[in-house]
């Protein structure tokens, strides 16, 4: 499945709302990393990433989320990951990244 990335700025809540769908892997994760960091540099705030249609993410994709988290934290912000599927939630647990990100909704709870 192709990878899709959508984003909008929520003026009311002052947060980025991002949707990632499809498969994030070693081929497209460098581009995603740049996109996420660019957004956080434009507006220095929290970012909510909707993952309900994210089918797969590999270790390089997890790495790009960590890079974005570092950028957000440098601005005293945070990254919230919403609605992770069970197979992706499992990868976050294996790598202990479930302790690093704010996970909301989805299978992990």
């Amino acid at each position, binding site marked *: 499945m192709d990878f899709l990335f959508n984003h909008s700025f929520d003026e009311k809540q002052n947060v980025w709302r991002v949707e990632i769908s499809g498969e994030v*892997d*070693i*081929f497209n994760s460098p581009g995603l990393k740049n996109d996420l960091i660019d957004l956080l540099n434009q507006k220095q705030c929290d970012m909510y990433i909707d993952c309900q249609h994210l089918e*797969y993410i*590999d270790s*390089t994709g997890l790495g790009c989320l960590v890079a974005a988290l570092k950028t957000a934290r440098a601005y005293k912000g945070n990254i919230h990951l919403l609605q992770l599927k069970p197979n992706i939630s499992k*990868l976050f647990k*294996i*790598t202990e990244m479930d302790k690093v990100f704010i996970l909301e909704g989805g299978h992990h709870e």
Partner: protein
Amino acid sequence: MNSDVKHELIELALPINAAFVSAARLTASSIANRMGFDIEAAEDIKAAVSESCIYFIKIFENNSSIIEEDEENSNSFKISFLMDENELIIKIISNFKANKALVVDPDNIALIMIKALMNHVEISVNENAQFVLHMLKKLEQNSLTL
């Protein structure tokens, strides 16, 4: 296990190129489903194969200066899937020569994921000095579907 696919061997040769990791992932997923692995186990196999490809690509990229340039097809690797009675055996072999400088980092995140997802994982260097990652996933009885 589905008796139609017992003892079959599927081999896939891929270039060291991130664009084709999805081909390995799709192949692994298809084989796991055909063997009768449940959804969770099939996802484990798919992720482990993908991480193995990443592991090989990173080793090649990080050591490209010490990999012999005259090696034919050195920038490629081969994945074999052996469908055994109650397990899937996956072997990934580099076409580049394993040098002593190729250090296996136990904290590598891809390797940590592979070990957590599969029943058995082993990394070695074969008689041809090729880098080999061998892994195995057992087919649980309650996963059987025909």
